């Protein structure tokens, strides 16, 4: 037994969940500790990779995921610890993804109005793997609707945040989300 020898006091922060090991590693990595940064990479790569795949495509995922971590290494000095490291990294990832999309030179109108979104995904008979069918349907959503759907329903951002990130009006974010959901309801696999 290790008596901490504290008088009536809070348990040393080193033992509490508050001391987010990520925050500790981020501080170390900011001062050049690559091993600490590798730990951060290992903890967060799955989620970042998933975000990239869903917002862009499988083809670009490896490269963009690497870009995100390289960018995070460069920007570590700006991580203040007010939010969780994962949250900070996630925001940075979204920014990199959006910038990447601009570089890819997507020209087509992203945010379809009307029922065009609904027409783009033909209804299919549900297969045995409901999750696969749903993901495939997501991938076939028009870019803008997919972006909003992934950020809101998969990643949990609010419309105000999405609007700010994507340069949209909040109302557009809401209508895109609704259209994405309406298109996807045919692929629930009942």
């Amino acid at each position, binding site marked *: 037994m290790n008596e901490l020898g504290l008088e009536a006091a809070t348990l040393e922060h080193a033992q509490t969940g508050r001391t987010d090991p990520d925050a500790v590693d981020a501080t170390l990595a900011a001062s050049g500790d690559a091993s600490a940064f590798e730990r951060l*990479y290992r*903890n967060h790569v799955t989620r970042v*990779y998933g975000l990239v*795949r869903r917002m862009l495509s499988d083809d670009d995922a*490896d490269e963009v995921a690497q870009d995100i971590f390289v960018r995070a290494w460069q920007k570590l000095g700006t991580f203040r610890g007010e939010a969780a490291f994962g949250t900070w990294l996630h925001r940075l990832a979204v920014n990199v993804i959006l910038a990447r999309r601009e570089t890819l030179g997507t020209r087509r109108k992203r945010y379809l109005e009307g029922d065009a979104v609904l027409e783009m995904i033909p209804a299919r008979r549900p297969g045995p793997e409901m999750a696969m069918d749903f993901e495939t349907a997501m991938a076939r959503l028009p870019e803008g609707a997919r972006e909003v*759907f992934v950020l809101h*329903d998969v*990643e949990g951002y609010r419309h105000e945040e999405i609007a700010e990130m994507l340069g949209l009006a909040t109302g557009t974010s*809401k209508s895109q989300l609704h259209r994405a*959901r309406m298109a996807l309801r045919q692929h629930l696999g009942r």
Partner: protein
Amino acid sequence: MSDQWTNRLSEYLDGELTDGERIALEAHLQSCGECSSVLTDLRQVVARARMLEHEAPHHDLWPGIAQRIGATVGETRTVDLGSRRAARRWSFSLPQLAAAGIALMTLSGGAVWLLHSPGQQNLAPPSAIVPSGNPRAINAAVNPRGNATQSYAAAVADLERVLASGRGQLDTTTIRVIEQNLAAIDRAIAQAQRALDADPANLYLNTHLAETMRRKLDLLRQAAALVPVT
């Protein structure tokens, strides 16, 4: 086919209507079976989205990153991605819980129970509930991700359909309270899932997620039981 309210259903689901709009839409839902059905579907879309798993990269990206940031990649590191993926595969519904002897069992009627296997003492929280009657049990341990995900989603869907079909017979305040609390549980599930994605081997997060999902099913069952039998 849609009416003026169909396009507002997502906002209603996300709690973004004004009080006046919400009351008007709820009044509309009492008599519009189609909108009720769409609302149920939208809720399931959202639930499905929240349950989506993230897939790890097919190969380790670290060497490329290390090179770009100028880190010294010392001795060759071989990361066993196989074991990592195995852990990831279990993270949604049967992670270390299975190794620890807890089976996620889906019983007829859509109840999901957490049961301790005999001999496991120090796992928390002990949410063992003895089911009454003779339920048909599907042991999801055989094909954890597929069966458990589908079973849970199917159970939630079944109960949501019962609730949707009976919403015209329930007090609007009751419906709103139930939906708000379902949304609160969904948010908790989403937060737990996100945390788990970042730390798939965390036993607390795994049991916490499973327990929160059980709370959702409990609430849905409780709500469905309020619908008068016709």
